[in-house]
């Protein structure tokens, strides 16, 4: 058995080089790999291309920390609070440096990754016709269907260098169980060259293999598995903890100016060595207040024969 279990800092060091394209936040609002994003910031990665649908505030943090040169996304901001100030500063004033923005919708970025997952150069779609997203996009092209007269837009495949996905549980061999709304996690995992899973729990392989339908992608796609309890905070993880709405409001307030954001970054990212220390800073009372309050177990399924 080969183990893919790595500490978070080593996984980021090995699989997220400067200049890499990384898919993040692929489940939309839940399961956002904040701990991995914060380690990327601590290691001072540069010139990253971020790929994602609705990234919530993780993209805003990475942009503000100066890690990003290009964003391929449908939405960058703060879902429950509104705009992302770092995204605004980068796009409007080139602070801390300019970023290239490649606009998508949730459907078109999902289709770009699905095309990558399917091993085809593009997928046609009938969304975004007449929009400026399509008109200004560097790669999306109009083409009539060869099988009829319908107008379509061709969405070219994306192949991220790495997808970083937070999951409920994984085994050390690189298989993960994830549940809830899946967003574009499956497409990202299959389209990427490889996946880093950060997991709430590392479980025996037998646990994962007992329910193969719940496995997101095959282990051949896995670069690394990292044990990071609380690694998605402040985003929610079904069955583990709820969304910390207040943290999004606090971030919104503390990222209004570059100086405010620098202080926030020092307090919550640069000034803490790892996620355990981050949760310590959050405080036991607040962390426990977010915990799932009652188990709601699914009925077991029978794979017997």
């Amino acid at each position, binding site marked *: 058995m080969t183990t893919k279990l790595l500490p978070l800092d080593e996984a980021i060091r090995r699989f997220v080089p400067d200049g890499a394209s990384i898919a993040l936040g692929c489940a939309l609002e*839940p399961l956002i790999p904040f701990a991995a994003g914060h380690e990327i910031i601590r290691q001072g990665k540069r010139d990253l291309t971020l790929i994602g649908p609705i990234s919530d505030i993780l993209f805003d943090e990475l942009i503000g920390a100066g890690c990003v040169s290009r964003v391929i996304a449908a939405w960058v901001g703060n*879902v429950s609070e509104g705009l992302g100030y770092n995204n605004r500063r980068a796009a409007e004033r080139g602070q801390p440096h300019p970023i290239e923005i490649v606009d998508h919708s949730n*459907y078109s970025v999902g289709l770009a990754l699905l095309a990558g997952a399917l091993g085809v150069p593009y997928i046609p779609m009938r969304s975004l016709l007449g929009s400026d997203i399509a008109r200004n996009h560097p790669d999306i092209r109009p083409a009539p269907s060869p099988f009829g007269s319908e*107008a379509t837009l061709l969405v070219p495949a994306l192949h991220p260098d790495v997808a970083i996905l937070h999951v409920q549980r994984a085994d050390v061999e690189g298989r993960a169980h994830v549940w809830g*709304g899946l*967003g574009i996690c499956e497409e990202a995992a299959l389209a990427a060259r490889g996946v880093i899973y950060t997991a709430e729990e590392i479980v025996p392989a037998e646990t994962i293999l007992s329910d193969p339908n719940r496995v997101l992608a095959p282990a051949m796609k896995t670069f690394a598995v990292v044990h990071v309890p609380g690694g998605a905070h402040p985003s929610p993880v079904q069955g583990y903890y709820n969304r910390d709405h207040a943290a999004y409001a606090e971030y919104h307030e503390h990222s209004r100016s570059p100086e405010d954001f620098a202080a926030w970054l020092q307090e919550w990212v640069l000034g803490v060595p790892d996620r355990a220390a981050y949760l310590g800073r959050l405080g036991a009372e607040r962390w426990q207040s977010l915990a*799932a309050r009652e188990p709601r177990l699914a009925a077991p399924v029978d794979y017997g024969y």
Partner: protein
Amino acid sequence: MADYTPQELMVVCAAREIRDGEVVFVGMRLPLIAFALAKRTHAPEAVGLFENGLVRDTPSRELLLTMGDAPNILGAEWATRTTALMGLLAQGHANLGFVGGAEVDRFGNLNTSYIGDRAHPAVKLPGSGGGADIASLARRLAIIMAHDRKRFPARVSYITSPGWGEGGDWRVRVGLPRGGPAAVITTLGVLGFAPETHEMELRSWHPFTTADEVRASTGWDLRIAPDVRETPAPTANELRIIRECDPQGFWTH
């Protein structure tokens, strides 16, 4: 003084757009409550689609700040991939979709991307999310907006989510398969679109304002629908349900 907030009336107006038995692409913010309100009043058989990959035939039992909050997943009738949900939308399964925006123009085009020049925007807005897909592909579109002259320019500087384009048969000409805006629910009134021209027109003003105030808050010479009237106020039952859904008034105050 009305005993409800503009946002509460907007939730009521949004819920009234949902017909019983319809499939609704719910979206973000006020429509999260409007779906719950419709389910508990006149549209018990409505089904909600959420682009993070959820189908629900019951409303969430707690207030949602995002569609991905844990209470929205418990009790879902399907939890799946975004592309699967968008595929249903693309096939035409969604009777109604909701979107919001920073700017909406005379033909219901929405901008949620850039105010000003795209290369050097005065304001960089978050972007489409799923909004452009809902606007492209739902059978009917309901737009939720704060109403002022800045947010209602004659023409948006960037079309994130296509409405009726330049009016008339624009959607057919650009190849969109169906749909188009049917209603614009704002802090001041409810607007619709004239048949044929697809130009926005005032259908009703909210009880705490006037048609003249709505026109003064709009960045072009807004037409008035022939059957314009005052927006019917929320009923006591509607307000009770909204306040049960949002007891702290996070979205509705």
